[in-house]
């Protein structure tokens, strides 16, 4: 397959961004957005992230894909009959320009940091998912992103829009077929849930060992709507994911689980933000981390209960399991409460080695130590794996976890 690419980032100009956008037949507003974002990227300092190691990362040399070869979509039922749209975002510009214009960048501000601006300037990959009012899609929809050129870069942009009462499962998967040289992914996913909509969102990151993944995801959740969000982070050299759920509508809910397993010298950070804005919003977060070898993970969470929210329920659990003494996991949970009307807010956190009592119990049944650790680790992740809708994907993830232990 021939690939269209940009020149190395160090050689891109405003003029080239304009030219390529126009050549693709994009609307003017989008060309203008891209140029503005590019200018921000070109002039902004790299973000200072204490816990994400970018010291060996050379963005000037990055060669970004300039077509959608890295994006594949999968679905198993007839979507057109129901008016459901799942195509690349590029394609959707031709059919749903107004919806895209209204939503693109409406969840994630492109100028929050340099790499978000880079995504806004250069995205070509990415999908557009639209589910009309009161439509339920039974079977999961999937977008898979793979690295098309060794050592290259992709910047997928995903826009997920659920109209009122819509109900769907969407899986986004970042996946390498082989380990490669330094490669770079900077995906952005924006999700909009109308009133009473339900989204099961599964984000799976299983890159090869030399990928830098700097991503952002945000869901804006309408009145009475529910998002069930499950994240699996297994791959990449360095991961920096800023994820946010904004419970804007009254009675909106999130069930948010994550499984992170780092080994070798992996440096994986997840920064989940949760904002309670509407009344009677409810959040349950359960984040699980396993570290091994000399890896380093960070849970950099923040729960913000805004002034206007009332009768909020918010529960955060985060647990880390250490399989070797040199591995490190940091947990920095933050809580900001601006209201006097919280129904329940709680936080539980544990961090430690595999429990000796559990190990002894299992060994007393004949299970050898290593097998017992396998069972404990897979059991630890079970609440997350349980939410993965495809058997094949669940098995592949379970196998990857097994192999890492």
């Amino acid at each position, binding site marked *: 397959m021939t690939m269209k690419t940009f020149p190395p980032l160090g050689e891109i100009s405003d003029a080239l961004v304009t030219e390529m956008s126009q050549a693709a037949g994009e609307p003017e507003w989008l060309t203008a957005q891209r140029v503005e974002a590019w200018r921000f990227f070109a002039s902004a300092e790299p973000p200072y992230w204490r816990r994400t190691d970018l010291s060996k990362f050379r963005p000037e040399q990055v060669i970004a894909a300039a077509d959608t070869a890295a994006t594949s979509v999968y679905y198993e039922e007839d979507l057109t009959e129901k008016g459901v749209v799942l195509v690349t975002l590029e394609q959707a510009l031709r059919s749903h320009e107004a919806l895209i214009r209204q939503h693109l960048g409406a969840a994630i501000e492109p100028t929050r940091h340099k790499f978000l601006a880079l995504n806004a300037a250069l995205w070509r990959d990415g999908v557009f998912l639209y589910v009309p009012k009161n439509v339920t899609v039974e079977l999961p929809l999937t977008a898979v992103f793979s690295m098309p050129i060794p050592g290259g870069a992709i910047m997928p942009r995903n826009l997920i829009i659920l109209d009122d009462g819509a109900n769907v499962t969407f899986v986004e998967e970042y996946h390498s077929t082989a380990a490669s040289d330094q490669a770079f992914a900077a995906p952005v996913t924006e999700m909009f849930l109308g009133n009473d909509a339900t989204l099961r969102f599964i984000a799976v990151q299983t890159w090869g060992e030399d990928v830098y993944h700097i991503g952002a995801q945000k869901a804006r959740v309408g009145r009475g709507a529910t998002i069930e969000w499950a994240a699996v982070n297994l791959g990449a050299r360095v991961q920096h994911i800023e994820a946010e759920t904004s419970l804007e509508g009254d009675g909106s809910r999130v069930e948010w689980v994550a499984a992170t397993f780092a080994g070798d010298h992996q440096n994986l950070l997840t920064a989940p933000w949760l904002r309670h804005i509407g009344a009677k919003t409810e959040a349950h977060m359960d984040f699980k981390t396993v570290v091994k070898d000399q890896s380093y993970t960070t849970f950099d969470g923040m729960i913000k209960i805004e002034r206007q929210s009332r009768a909020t329920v918010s529960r955060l659990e985060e647990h880390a399991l250490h399989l070797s003494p040199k591995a490190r996991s940091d947990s920095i949970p933050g809580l900001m409460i601006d209201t006097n009307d919280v129904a329940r807010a709680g936080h539980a956190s544990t961090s430690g080695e595999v429990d000796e009592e559990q190990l*002894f*119990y299992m060994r*007393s049944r004949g*299970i050898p*130590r290593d097998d017992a650790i396998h*069972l404990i680790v897979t*059991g*630890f992740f*079970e609440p997350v794996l349980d939410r993965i809708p495809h058997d094949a994907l669940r098995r592949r993830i379970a196998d990857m976890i097994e192999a890492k232990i």
Partner: protein
Amino acid sequence: MNSDLVINDLRVSVEDKEILKGVNLTVKAGSIHAIMGPNGSGKSTLAYTLMGHPGYTVTGGEVWYQGRNILELEPDERSKLGLFLAFQYPVAIPGVTVANFLRAAINAHRAEEGKDPKETAIPMAQFRKQLREQMAALGIDEGFARRYLNEGFSGGEKKRIEILQMAMLEPSMAIMDETDSGLDIDALKIVAQGVNTLYAQHPEMGVLVITHYQRLLNYIKPHFVSVLMDGRIVREGGPELALELEEKGYDFIREEVASA
């Protein structure tokens, strides 16, 4: 090879405190042997030590079983040798279902050096059938197979699941540490029946029953009763000893020991 469990002058410390101070005890193959004793006398310490809990330091003595000094074996090796401990306080294993746990345990027992574990693993259908039957016999709802092991189980449910594991693993030497505590009277009968059935099917099996109460011994009838007090076996006898203890309490033995 000797299928009796022979404990010779066993001394055990926890955090530098000596708990077992020279225990001598033989649990004969094919016998049911009760151990009674006041709280804190070292009964659970003995049970844990026999199974190889790493928190208990053996400072002296030997425990012989099947021709091996089992104190030199890892807990999983002891299990494969036929030992089983029904815990007084079973631990929860989050995310691991009862069925998966049991299958892992059974397959660990069936594993053979140099053979592909897939070859020796129990066929799924056979496992399911066996599990269903044993659960039914112990009055355990089928739904428990899919629940995470001991997570959120009531005290009584945990004890039944311990006996379920015992029935599935068919040990040749079973130690039951206060399996009766936390059981209501109906559950007690069912659990005792489970043990008796297993014993009837395996008459060569040895059973070491740790309990405070005669109540259990009405259903699981011991051939021998030993009394553990302050880290030593201070009295041995037949079933009548348990009845005597029930009637008089431990004081009369304490006095005997003191005057001896």
